[in-house]
């Protein structure tokens, strides 16, 4: 862009470039690392609750993501992009959405799928259609369905002194148990099954707000703790790294649908707070759905996108076959993004340019 010309009079090299000549100090890299910073509370919580297991999975995801991106750039003979922070975000989001006892090599496969297939094959940062971390997770769901739905309770919930010390990996089989959302799903399944005499109620899960809020439940590494995502999300909002449109739309839509269902039939449907604090909803609202690359450009588009994600999540949770639906909801709405951009084409101040 810039070329230099010589001023013969003073032998001074003057730089010539197009205006504007002032640039706001924020860079894309800084935006990325702000997101990473916002995820630190959740990462810390995962390490606290799941100890070595979490550490291994997250480390494996981060290393394999950076290595995969580095290799892709080498093969494509492109400038290296591994320091731009985006691979780090993908690795952390994917890692935090995996169950704690998943074998490390599976996590690596998922990460490679996320970086290579979902991001680099589409052209790298900015060109991917789908959220890479969610593609990676979907890939693992397809390959290792059973492993992906086996949930270990946090070590802090297991009264096992060997594990409490943290340093020793427990030799006893880890305590596994249903996630709160699976507990919430059971009454819905039972209600549909007319033959079943003893039907489950959501009473048990309705008692679990506090552990769900602070992370004392079973679930994937990052989805047990709503409060830490909330802290990170508020940080991103205050830093203006993200705008409020998507988080608000996702949470409001999910909350409203959950409330309606609960009002209609509290015997079958769990309390709305279970849905708001349970599963990956907080993580999705602030960190997954807000991925700028895969969400719409316009404000209205972002609101529709958020409403779609929230509605789809609740649809899957209340009606569909899975207890949790963040991944499919985000991927489906990602596919809608180009269309939403088109539908919400802004009208300039003063109206469209008339075709003359």
């Amino acid at each position: 862009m810039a070329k230099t010309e010589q001023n013969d009079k003073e032998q001074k090299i003057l730089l010539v470039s197009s205006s504007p000549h002032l640039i706001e100090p924020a860079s894309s890299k800084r935006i990325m690392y702000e997101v990473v910073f916002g995820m630190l509370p959740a990462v810390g919580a995962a390490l606290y609750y799941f100890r070595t297991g979490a550490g291994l999975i997250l480390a494996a995801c981060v290393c394999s993501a950076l290595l995969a991106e580095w290799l892709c750039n080498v093969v494509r003979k492109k400038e290296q992009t591994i320091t731009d922070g985006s691979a780090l975000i993908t690795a952390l989001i994917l890692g935090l959405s995996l169950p704690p006892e998943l074998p490390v090599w599976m996590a690596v496969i998922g990460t490679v799928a996320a970086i290579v297939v979902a991001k680099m094959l589409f052209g790298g940062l900015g060109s991917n259609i789908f959220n890479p971390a969610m593609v990676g997770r979907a890939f693992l769901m397809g390959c290792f369905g059973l492993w992906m739905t086996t949930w270990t309770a946090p070590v802090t919930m297991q009264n096992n002194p060997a594990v409490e010390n943290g340093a020793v990996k427990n030799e006893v089989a880890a305590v596994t148990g249903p996630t709160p959302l699976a507990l919430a799903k059971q009454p819905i399944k039972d209600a549909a099954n007319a033959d079943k005499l003893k039907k489950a109620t959501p009473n048990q899960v309705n008692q679990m707000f506090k552990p769900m809020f602070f992370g004392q439940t079973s679930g994937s590494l990052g989805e047990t703790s709503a409060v830490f995502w909330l802290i990170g999300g508020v940080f991103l909002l205050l830093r203006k790294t993200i705008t409020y449109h998507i988080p608000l739309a996702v949470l409001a839509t999910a909350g409203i649908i959950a409330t309606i269902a609960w009002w209609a039939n509290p015997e079958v449907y769990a309390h709305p707070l279970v849905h708001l604090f349970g599963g990956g909803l907080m993580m999705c609202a602030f960190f997954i759905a807000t991925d700028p690359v895969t969400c719409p450009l316009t404000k209205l588009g972002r609101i529709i996108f958020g409403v779609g994600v929230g509605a789809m999540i609740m649809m899957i949770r209340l009606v569909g076959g899975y207890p949790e639906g963040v991944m499919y909801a985000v991927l489906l709405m990602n596919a809608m993004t180009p269309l939403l951009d088109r539908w919400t084409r802004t009208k300039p101040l003063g109206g469209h340019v008339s075709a003359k």
Partner: protein
Amino acid sequence: MVIAAEDSKKVAGRFSFSRGVHPAEHKEIAENMPVRRVQPASGATVVVPMSQHLGAPCKPTVEAKQEVKSQQEIGSSDAFVSAPVHSPVNGTVKEISPQPHPSGRKVLSVVIKVGDEQSADNEWQELPEGFAEKIDKLEPEEIIRTIRKAGIVGMGGAAFPTAVKLVRNENKPVDTVILNGCECEPYLTSDYRLMLEAPKPIVAGLQLAMRAAGARQGIIAIEDNKPDAISTILMEIRQLDNIQLAICKTKYPQGGERQLINAVLGRVVPTGGLPLDVGVVVVNVSTASAISWACAEERPLTERIVTLTGRGITEPGNYLVPVGMMLAELIEQAGGLTEDAEKVLLGGPMMGPSTGHLNVPIMKGTSGITVMSRAEVCREPETACIRCSRCVDHCPLKLVPTKIAHAVKAGDLETAQRYDLMACIECGCCGYICPSQIPLLQYMRSGKAAVQAAKRK
């Protein structure tokens, strides 16, 4: 800022438009420097381009070797949208030939060798006695004729012939004249100094413009980062019932015509239309001052205040400069460039084009020269668009710059135009805010140029 109770009716505050950006102002570099007059040395040359305005270029009305007097007309045109040019000095015409022009092309110009004897300096602060009372007796047609003869153009940058703006249109009556004293460009302080040091000609110019256009109210718009200018102007308009002061938020591009009208009056200028379509004429404060002097003593526009600013200039300040003076000479009189001067801008940093050499003249529309030092110049490399939509959220026209830029990059002018490429006012907010340092405005400009070229075919 404290505003006396009796003035509260005169002032309304906190006007703004939606979106836009808040670049660092850097006005402190030159804002406290009083206006200083500079003159080209005798024997030096001044270059007066025949095209210093939007519209038809002038034809020279003098010949080589001819003696010219200061303020003598040296180029004019019969076209409706045009403005004559005048000699800023006494001297001899050296040649009439294409000369380097701030636009980057060469433009036919009259080159004048500055003579030894110059006439006395023009007064620029105090209007002649009794002129203020005469304003109401002047005929609108006469005012417009005088403005046209004086070669006055918009001095805020766009350089649209002012007389054309003020001509009455039966179908589109004007009810408001807005005087633009926002000076929202960072660094620049020429309008601020003028408001501070010579408020009377500005207010008189507004009254003249209102009379010419047939407007019943006048509004002077000033950004709230200039409290001194606000109180100075307020003193001048106390006794005038039909003139108000609007304090606008400091935000870029508050002084953009469309944004200002929207902020102050809540009216929206249609895309492709003019302020006239919503009954408004916007005049820059420097232009208003020039209107006063034209009507007071038939003085043509041959000098203007230019801010010389930035960390790359030794003596930043506000200079009263003859139009046509060479940039190199002006900079020399201001102590020259510093060691680390790196970029010279003809205007402010948001909209001003950069120049690779100092062989260009100061024009009627040159409100400032910003010389950026190495430290001020941004050299971050361009990275991939992450679709963060900051350009969309900050575009004051509600365009989708990244979409348009990508379409232009791909040569898809049809998509670019469907997303209203041609509505872009080139304010530069998108390029300023982009975290990936993508030269969005450059794509917009080249796209617009390509569309216009295609239309001409």
